[in-house]
Structures are given as C-alpha cells and as structure tokens.
C-alpha cells in the first residue's frame, strides 16, 4: 500500500489489528474506543476515548495505535483523546459481546442511559448460560470487570461491567 492512495477505510482496517492489552480478543473498534478518523495533509488523525478515567492502559493503547496504523499504512499518525465523547458500555459492538462470551467473560447488559443496580442481577453465566447467578463484587481483576457467581454450575465468572 502506498501512502498517497491510503483511504480512511484503510485506516479503519489497520485499527482492527490494535487489540486491547487486557482483553486481547477485542480490538479498539469493537470496544467502541475510536470516535473519529480523518486524513489531513498526509497525516492520519485518530480520536480515541479510554474506557475508564483511570485506565492504566491508555498510553499503551495510544502507542499501539500509532505504531500499527503507521506500519500498515505508512502514514504518520496522530492520536488524541476525544473529550467530547465519553465511553459507555453500550458502545461495545455485537461482535465484541460475542467474542467476550467465548473468552469466558460475560458481556454487559444494554442499559437505557441511567444504570440501575438491578441490571447486575441474573447476569447470564458465560459457561453454562444459566441466569441463576448473583453479583459477588462490582470490582474485579481490572477496572472494567465485575465478579459474579453461578449457582447452577458453581463457577465464579467475570463480567465486562455495564457503564453509563
């Protein structure tokens, strides 16, 4: 691919190769972290948003975006944090949710703007699909995960938390 003919679509294709370091089966597009891509004066400008304010992986992900897009398109890349959009779990794509389930992490329930505590009850178990489960702790191994327990198969499982 030559730089002169690179399109926005090519940049999106390159972004599919940038995986989340904590959930390596998901790329940044599936996670809903990319809010804008533009090509201006031969530079790819990519706007992104972190999932959580204190996400320790943000600068690592930015670095991966720069390196991967540059490698695959040959373009110089500028990555900025978009402050006008905030991440919420509804931004996860359907593909992302399916991949999460296969990875053993329950997907977040879709919420209608305001998050209510009840939404965390009866989260389907990613192992046996039972809804006979309860929330053990709203905090897990990373900021974006909660811990649940399945009363049917006896497994403790993680869930990607629903976030407003």
């Amino acid at each position, binding site marked *: 691919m030559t730089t002169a003919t690179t399109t926005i679509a090519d940049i999106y294709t390159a972004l599919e190769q940038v995986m989340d370091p904590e959930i390596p089966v998901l790329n940044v597009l599936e996670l809903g972290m990319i809010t804008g891509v533009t090509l201006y004066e031969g530079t790819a400008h990519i706007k992104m948003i972190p999932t959580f304010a*204190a996400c320790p992986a943000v600068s690592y992900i930015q670095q991966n975006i720069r390196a991967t897009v540059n490698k695959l398109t040959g373009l110089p890349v500028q990555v900025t944090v978009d402050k006008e959009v905030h991440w919420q779990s509804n931004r996860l794509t359907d593909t992302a949710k399916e991949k999460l389930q296969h990875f053993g992490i329950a997907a977040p329930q879709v919420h209608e703007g305001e*998050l209510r*505590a009840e939404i*965390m009850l009866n989260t389907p178990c990613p192992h046996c699909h039972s809804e006979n489960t309860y929330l053990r702790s*709203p905090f897990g*191994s990373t900021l974006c995960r909660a811990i649940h327990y399945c009363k049917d198969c006896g497994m403790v499982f993680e869930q990607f938390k629903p976030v407003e």
Partner: protein
Amino acid sequence: MNAALQKAITTLITSMADDALILGHRNSEWTGLGPIMEEDIAFSSMAQDKIGHAWALYRILQEHLGGEDPDQFAFIRAAKDFTCCHLAELPISSYDFSLMRHFLFDHAEAVRYESLQQCSFEPLQQLSKKVKGELKYHTLHADAWVLQLCRGGEESQQRMQAALDRCFPLAAGIFEPGPQDALLADAGIYPGEQTLYDKWLNTIYPLLVNASLNLPDPAAIPPQYGGRYGNHTPHLQALLQEMGEVFRLDPTAGW
C-alpha cells in the same frame, strides 16, 4: 471568564481533586489487608478510580486554568496548600470506619457530579459525565456492604452505628462553604455546598433507615470544617510524606 471566577473554579476543582487523591491513597492502604479478597480488590480498584479522577481534575487545572503539571502539583505541595476535607485524610483505622467513610464520601461525590452535569464550565461538565458513571459502582459497593454488616448481628450493627456517629461530623465537613459559593452558583458552575449537603442528606437518609442506622441529628452536631482552608489534622502531613517519598527522590524523572 473574569479572574475572580477563574480563581473560584480553580479552588473548587482543587478541593475535589485533593479529596479524590487523598482518599484514593487511603483506599490503597487496604491493598493486601482487606478482610476478604473481594474487599481487598474493591478498595484497590476504588483507589485506582479515585486517583484517576484526581489526575483528570488536575489536568483540567493545567490545560484550562494555568495550573501546574499534575504530578508536581500532587506530590510536591505542602500540606497547608492541600484543601481536602478531614474525612479523606484520616488513617484507614478499622474496616467499619473505612467502609462508613467510603459510603458517606461516595454518596457526596455522586451528588456533586450529578449537579455538575449542568456545569457551565465545559471541561468539568464533560468529565463529570464519565466520573458519575464510574461512581455508580462505588455507591453500589458501599450500599451493599453497609446493609450486609448492619444485618450481620448485634455487634456488627453496633460497630456500624459507632462508625456512623464518628464519621458523620467529618462527612458534613465535605460541604464546608467557600467564600465563592454564590459566585459559582450565579455563573452556573454548581449550586453551592449548602444545596449539595441537603441533597446528600436526602440521599443517605433512606439508605441508613433501611440498614436500621440512626442518622445523628445534623442540627446538633457541628461539622468538622477547616480542610478547605488548608487547616488539617496531623495525619495529612504523614500521608504526604509517605506518598511523595519516591517522587521526591528525583522530581524530574520520566516514568
């Protein structure tokens, strides 16, 4: 924006950020010591969130209000230049105290960030949407454990009541009025401490009743003020000493 309003917003954001940083540091002191592993993880995660919120607020000061680099500002300042409330700076003590502090503080934060959804200062309004969503999990966690321990037998219930009695005047000190409250309210920044305090009481009251806890009479107990004006307990100095120890070895080091 005129200079007086800019100064008032800076004061407000600094207090919010200092509360988050200092309580975040205190929360992190439970890492490795939590009574059960889930609680160890919960307090560690909340510490990470809080320090992240503090950093984002310090960044607003730096990017929009002529403030310093967040790390320098967090680690090098003297105790008297911090404006956190006394509630945030006290040592973790026992789990009942830390849990009750977390309950009262996070509901106060939730009320504050809810009010900032309408803030006329755009950077703060934008950040508040994100923080508000994250705080849901802090209050969810606090509510669940307060209720569980209050229903966990006589000793457990008594200890939670004692923790509430101790924490209440400290928590009321979160809402220490500032001289610029009216200015900030007029400019549409936020409604002022008194309004937030009333909303906070209305939020926690039914939760405490549900847990069979008696809210101390707010009119009879003087709030523990002073933090917003740089007057602190001796515990803050000790905390800052420890928190900045590594940073001060080489303040210009890149991490």
